[in-house]
């Protein structure tokens, strides 16, 4: 029997399938199949692919679980908006008009594909789905889960005490509109980046600035008497749909919000001011996170922490939080945002079924589930545009030779990564000791701004030599959830993968993982790190199947492609 979890309608729709042993069998994001980045519509294509792959029906589906309580989610924002805004207000009208496109239509959408008369439909709490999506990978109990996101159901931040699998106590919440995630998104909007998309760009930009606007921003959001308060006078996300900050914030910061079409280039006009705003927002975010973590410890006395929600993708803040002296372990799931919540929802269904989870004591659920699923994809058409230069047996050796010759290799290898970070199966990789090659990869091929860092991948056995690693974050380094500081003795050998704040979002690889195998072969060529960035074009989702890979190769002008069947060179 299977448990089907679904997350949808807010951002990054996805589906997850857990089997009767509590194993993650498959996970798919709708954007991978529809090719529309951030696709939040009902995950129709992803669901159809799961139904076809596993012949899902009432015969083998134990339950379908939606990741939030749909009516509560919709009513909370509408109630707040009706209460606080004039009736002709944009947000109210938009919410009212879009009820039909919200999670309220879930039952209708799912019933087009599966027989709801015979399959129980369950609803998890939004933040509980996040908590369980982390608990699925890290099962040391008891522990405390901190969830920080924009908004879900009714809450924006939650602290859950996980005493056992069937006792997860909700001990503290911050209700809408008091949201750390929406604050960070509002500043992202102020800086001209897209909300729900550009937050990581703002994090990268923050490293170039000084927190000169910290005092001003601190007036707009603060933590007082164990409560998170947002002064909504400064933020229009409670009033408008087209803008998240208010004119009051513009008056307070005295800097004109950046127009999205104006390039942000290091050294050019206003770059410093915008970097300073980003740096200030990052500092405010980190300090409030410290307060939330301290409160979580005070209320539970736990030292093992789980951290999820969109804000947990802030790898820089994660590293700083890990330094809090009461944290023994800080664990982040590979997909901390809403798409990963589908895994939590499916796990909720599994736990409610009271079936025992079969855990192999030797296995690590995190490592085992980084690339789950079944991908039906064939590449026979590659014989037209490519020359196969090596079969699957020799492809790792050949790839290492190509990389040592300072070439960039794209990978579309087996199943895709669960989370937003490319961990080798959908990556563009090259020699991380070659700075000019990394610059070419980042700016010419991926068309990214220079202020955005490129991440390094390194074998576990070499990681300590190059980086100062936090022991309580070790799990997070397997999926790039946290940054680390490079050691001084080696930093000058890898400057291309070190960011302006002297950190790297390092990925630690095991020898039996794809990047680990390539790195092992590269050791005798004196290459110990790979530069690794996601295989996609800006504004496109990650490459999913072989057709996407070929299309992206053509668009990016890359020569080499590694798949599970061999290494190809473009004719």
């Amino acid at each position, binding site marked *: 029997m299977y448990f089907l979890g679904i997350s949808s309608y807010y951002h990054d729709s996805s589906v997850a399938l857990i089997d009767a042993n509590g194993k993650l069998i498959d996970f798919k994001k709708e954007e991978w199949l*529809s*090719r*529309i*980045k*951030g*696709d939040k*519509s*009902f995950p*129709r294509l992803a669901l159809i692919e799961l139904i076809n792959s596993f012949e899902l029906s009432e015969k083998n589906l134990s339950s379908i*679980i939606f990741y939030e*309580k*749909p*009516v*509560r989610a919709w*009513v*909370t924002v*509408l*109630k707040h908006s*009706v*209460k606080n805004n004039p*009736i*002709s207000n944009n947000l*109210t009208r938009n919410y*009212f008009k879009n009820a039909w496109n919200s999670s309220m239509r879930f039952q209708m959408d799912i019933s087009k594909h599966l027989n709801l008369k015979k399959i129980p*439909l*369950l*609803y*998890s*709490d939004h933040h*509980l789905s996040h*908590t369980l999506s982390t608990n699925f990978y890290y099962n040391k109990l008891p522990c405390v889960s901190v969830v920080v996101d924009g908004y879900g159901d009714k809450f924006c931040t939650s602290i859950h005490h996980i005493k056992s*699998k*069937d*006792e*997860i*106590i*909700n*001990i503290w919440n911050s209700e809408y509109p008091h949201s750390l995630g929406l604050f960070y998104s509002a500043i992202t909007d102020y800086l001209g980046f*897209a909300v729900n998309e550009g937050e990581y760009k703002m994090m990268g930009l923050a490293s170039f600035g000084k927190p000169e606007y910290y005092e001003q921003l601190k007036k707009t959001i603060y933590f007082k008497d164990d409560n998170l308060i947002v002064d909504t006078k400064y933020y229009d996300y409670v009033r408008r749909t*087209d*803008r998240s900050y208010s004119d009051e914030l513009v008056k307070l910061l005295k800097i004109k919000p950046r*127009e*999205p*079409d104006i390039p942000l280039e290091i050294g050019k006009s206003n770059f410093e001011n915008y970097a300073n705003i980003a740096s200030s927002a990052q500092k405010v975010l980190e300090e409030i996170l410290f307060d939330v973590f301290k409160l979580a410890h005070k209320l539970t006395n736990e030292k093992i922490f789980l951290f999820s929600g969109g804000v947990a993708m802030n790898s820089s803040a994660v590293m700083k939080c890990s330094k809090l002296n009461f944290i023994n372990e800080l664990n982040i799931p590979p997909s901390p945002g809403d798409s990963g919540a589908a895994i939590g929802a499916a796990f*909720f269904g599994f*736990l*409610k079924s009271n079936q025992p989870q079969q855990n192999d004591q030797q296995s690590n659920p995190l490592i085992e589930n980084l690339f789950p699923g079944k991908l039906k994809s064939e590449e*026979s*058409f590659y014989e*037209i*545009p490519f020359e196969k230069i090596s079969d699957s047996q020799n492809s790792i050796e050949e790839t290492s030779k190509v990389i040592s010759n300072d070439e960039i290799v794209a990978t579309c290898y087996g199943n895709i990564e669960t989370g937003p970070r490319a961990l080798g199966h959908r990556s563009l990789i090259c020699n991380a000791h070659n700075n000019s090659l990394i610059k070419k990869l980042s700016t010419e091929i991926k068309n990214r701004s220079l202020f955005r860092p490129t991440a390094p991948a390194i074998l576990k056995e070499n990681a300590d030599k190059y980086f100062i690693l936090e022991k309580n974050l070790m799990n997070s380094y397997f999926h790039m959830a946290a940054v680390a500081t490079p050691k001084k003795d080696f930093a000058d050998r890898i400057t291309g993968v070190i960011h302006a704040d002297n950190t790297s979002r390092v990925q630690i690889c095991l020898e039996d993982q794809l990047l680990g195998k390539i790195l092992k072969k590269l050791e005798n060529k004196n290459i110990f790190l790979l530069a690794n960035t996601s295989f996609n074009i800006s*504004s*496109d989702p990650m490459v999913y*199947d072989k*057709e*996407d890979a*070929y*299309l992206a190769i*053509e*668009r990016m002008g890359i020569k080499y492609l590694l798949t599970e069947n061999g290494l190809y060179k473009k004719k």
Partner: protein
Amino acid sequence: MILTPEKDQNLLKSIVEFSYAEYGSALEMLAAAKRAKSPKLKIGYIKHALDEYRHTFLLHKVLSNQVKKGKWKFEREFKFSPQNVLLKGYVDKDGYLVEKLALKKFVEFVYSNEYLAKSSFDWLTKQITDSESIKTLKRIMDDEQHHADDSQETLESIMKDELVHHGMAKKFYEAKFPESKLNKAFKRELFKNKLRTFYYKNLKFLNKIFDPILNFFITCFGRIVNLIVIPVPSDKNLMAKDPKSIL
């Protein structure tokens, strides 16, 4: 391909719409490639998708060039957001065309829409050359004595691609369905295009009628919503809550 150019609309807005239309076509072609069995056909669809992606990029370049001249302001709605391709209806959220149409209907659609695209780009090229805004732009360009703005050239290169696509679609259609006639398909697509144009032209007017009605409903419903109390369960154990409740 769905195009809704309007002469009386801001030119930049038309370019934005064109870019979404091209993006939508790219997605449709990629979806077709994924379902094609023959390697040659697969590559053909991917090449077509590549052109459509390139056009999207080039149209953004045209847009950016126009804005850089300072005549127009970059409005937030001009910023490309992939999800707008669904919201604006350039891709149907209920399925790509290749999922919904039989091969003949799909090829008919591509063929006739490439024809319409060709004529729409013809229209846009004329707008760039003849409209008053472009004259102003030309003046600015002459002043600067640079040739930075390659809008005309870019559009011409897109036109060439569209002609190729149209030719290819025609060739494929005639080879595959030699006895068929396309007149009906042309008329159908043209009618749908006109209907869309009519809808967008009258959207503001329709809003004027419906907005007061909507406000009335919100006022009534808002009062009801305010009466809804979201229950706070006495048991703080989240695993003990009713999993069937939607509240």
